[in-house]
């Protein structure tokens, strides 16, 4: 994926665009297209404007979490806390706007601020306390954030948010959900950030070889803190969309959402070893999961069985990637 994208910008033509190369580069996209074709054949309710917009809406929360998750994964890290951070962000937004009756804009700022704050905290744990791996620091934060979210209202949900706050998760422009427009805008910004800004490129450098990055004068700690802060910010934003969708905030919101986010990133071709992965791959990964869920629902497949299938898809997607890399090496 990445090569093609970069090339388009450079305006040059890839020299060895063999069929095989294209196949392996666009494997996730091809997977998505195949999935759509199969589901269209199996269910006549699948490929309708209504349903497609439905998928767009359903995918938006995970898409936002996944694009945040891409950054830690690019640095060979992980952020397990996003689901819980989503919950604490929306709960505090609920407290400020519903319980305390503050201006909705302040509520939105609280939501995004709390998300970023927890993300920043993850970054500090990793870089200043030097906890050995973000798996550990974010596992800790995951529990802390969820715990606080439950404590705030003694586990009670908060409902009745002002329209301003619900706007993003609820409204449509024509047939298109605002949340999906938001997703596309966020992804475009991330794409520019990762390919065209210094910090974005440094994220790849740190994931590829942290020592080489440090010796090249890159402030590794600063970049990592930014990475986790952004991941937290995306959790807050995903929370905002969620509140609009369900018109309430509840302490168990986003429970185990981090897993779908990680799955989307990995299905989209990012490497757990860091340094490899793209924005558009991640979007496709998130769409694959959403399409799969939606299609299986239309086909009346039970939730338990859906879980099994999604697990199999994750393994299959990563295996395709492994095959591709092996082919590159040997051939």
């Amino acid at each position, binding site marked *: 994926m990445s090569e093609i994208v970069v090339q388009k910008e450079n305006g040059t033509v890839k020299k060895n665009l063999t069929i095989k190369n294209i196949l392996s580069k666009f494997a996730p996209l091809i997977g998505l297209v195949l999935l759509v074709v199969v589901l269209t054949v199996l269910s006549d309710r699948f490929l309708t404007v209504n349903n497609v917009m439905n998928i767009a809406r359903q995918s938006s929360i995970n898409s936002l979490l996944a694009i945040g998750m891409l950054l830690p994964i690019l640095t060979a890290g992980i952020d397990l806390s996003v689901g819980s951070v989503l919950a604490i962000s929306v709960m505090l937004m609920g407290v400020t706007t519903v319980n305390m009756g503050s201006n909705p804009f302040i509520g939105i700022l609280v939501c995004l601020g709390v998300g970023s704050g927890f993300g920043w905290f993850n970054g500090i744990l990793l870089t200043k306390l030097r906890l050995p791996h973000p798996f550990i620091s974010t596992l800790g934060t995951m529990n802390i954030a969820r715990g606080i979210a439950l404590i705030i209202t003694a586990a009670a949900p908060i409902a009745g948010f002002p329209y301003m706050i619900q706007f993003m998760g609820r409204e449509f422009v024509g047939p298109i959900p605002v949340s999906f427009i938001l997703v596309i805008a966020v992804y475009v910004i991330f794409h520019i950030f990762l390919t065209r800004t210094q910090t974005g490129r440094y994220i790849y*450098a740190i994931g590829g070889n942290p020592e*080489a990055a440090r010796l090249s*004068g890159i402030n590794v700690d600063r970049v990592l803190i930014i990475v986790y802060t952004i991941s937290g910010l995306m959790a807050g934003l995903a929370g905002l969309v969620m509140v609009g969708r369900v018109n309430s905030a509840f302490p168990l919101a986003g429970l185990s959402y981090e897993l779908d986010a990680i799955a989307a990133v990995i299905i989209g071709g990012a490497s757990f070893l860091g340094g490899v992965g793209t924005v558009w791959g991640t979007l496709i990964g998130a769409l694959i999961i959403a399409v799969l869920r939606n299609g299986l629902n239309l086909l009346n497949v039970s939730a338990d069985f859906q879980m099994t299938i999604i697990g199999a898809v994750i393994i299959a997607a990563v295996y395709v990637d492994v095959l591709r890399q092996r082919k590159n090496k040997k051939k």
Partner: protein
Amino acid sequence: MDVETKSLLEIRGIKKSFDQNHVLKGIDFDVKAGEVHVLLGENGAGKSTLIKILTGAYQKDAGEIYWEGRMVDLNTPVDAMNIGIATIYQELNLIPQLKVYENIFLGRELKRSGKRSLLDHNAMHEEAKRCLKMLGQNPNIADMQVSRLGIGQQQLVEVAKALALDAKLIIMDEPTSSLSAQEVDQLYKCVESLKAKGIAIVFISHRLEEIRRLGDRITILRDGFKIDTLQVRTTETDYWIELMVGRSLDEKFPKQNFTLGKEGFRVEGLEVEGTQEPVEFSVRYGEIIGISGLVGAGRTELARAIFGADSSKNGKIFIDGKEVKIKSPRDAINSGIAFITEDRKGEGLLLDQKLDFNIVMANMKKFTGKSRLIDLNAIREESENYINELKVRPNNLELNARNLSGGNQQKIVIAKWLCTQAKVFIFDEPTRGIDVGAKVEVYRLMNRLVENGAIVIMISSELPEILGMCDRVLVMSEGKFTANFKIEDASQEKIMKAATGG
């Protein structure tokens, strides 16, 4: 080829390409028991690729491989090991967290009795010690964790690993490129004793002196073709170079003398980790300073301390008489210091990123405009300039660094630091693994840097290049300077004596 002496290994018509890049275009050669067969060729000529095919790491596209007269298929490294081919790759392949003896027996651990029984640590230990002794190493390092050894010693552990295999053919891909003079001597002795035992050796090297000293026959590759196989004893070195680069090379060390200017760089009272004595030296404009010494003498540590890569105490660094505060590599780069590290894979490159990004990553701000976006076209242009200047092959910016040959990777690391437009360049083993032609390019580049008003410091274990290119040489031993020669007064013997603490 004479039919009388049967070849241990013979290959015919080996071809290999990566995508559209045809790397090997039909290679024939053979190795006899007890001979040292050298492969010589420019960076990217296909030497490493050829031996990776012989060790089952890559699959050939066409051609045949015969082992003791029988055709064999080498599909995996284990196949090659089983028939008796051991390999020491160009890039180290040890597991840093494991002990030396565990690395030596990795994958074929000795057991107490049957296949499923417990590991026999004592036996592995003893055998590892024996192999290390054969290499003239302190056998007690068998117990040390590999990460605590320097690159030179790690390389010798790789050799010990091959010895422990009892291989009939040992392939060595630039085994001496990271060893100190002393370790190199040990390796030579070891190669000679292996040869006397009837073991065949395929030896890849860019060091012509050692080829002359060790080699029996030499096969020269160029652009994926085998040019010729010659007897080492009856042919001239210059002739090899001519076959290898396709033209003759005028001078190996294009030393240029410039008028000495004022002092531009000074280090005072710097305490390098692990030593007590503070280090002091200065460099003037117009001169190239060499820092010589054995591997482990503390030269790299000194450079890292100057560069802020490791924490150091008390040191003062002056550029143009003004003190600069360096606490991190970033400070160093901002003060105009570049440090071309010796371990290109571990400290230099982003292996899975494209060449242009590798080249500009230490100076991204140069390509970041007011819009805060980086200018991809400017990056490409600048990278292209460096790639052409340093003759990187293949000259395709879209490649990932991983897919370049070792010598070409080294050139990318050099390009990265040129791109920082620093004032002070500290080169740590800059010509390691690069071919004779490219070495001359690097030396010319140093000349140009000095001419344009940069300070150049070269750490090197290769005495000929120190003597050939530097104006002054500082010799280090056990973390302190033991000599400071003007180049007219220096000689290999004097430097070696100072390096061994004498």
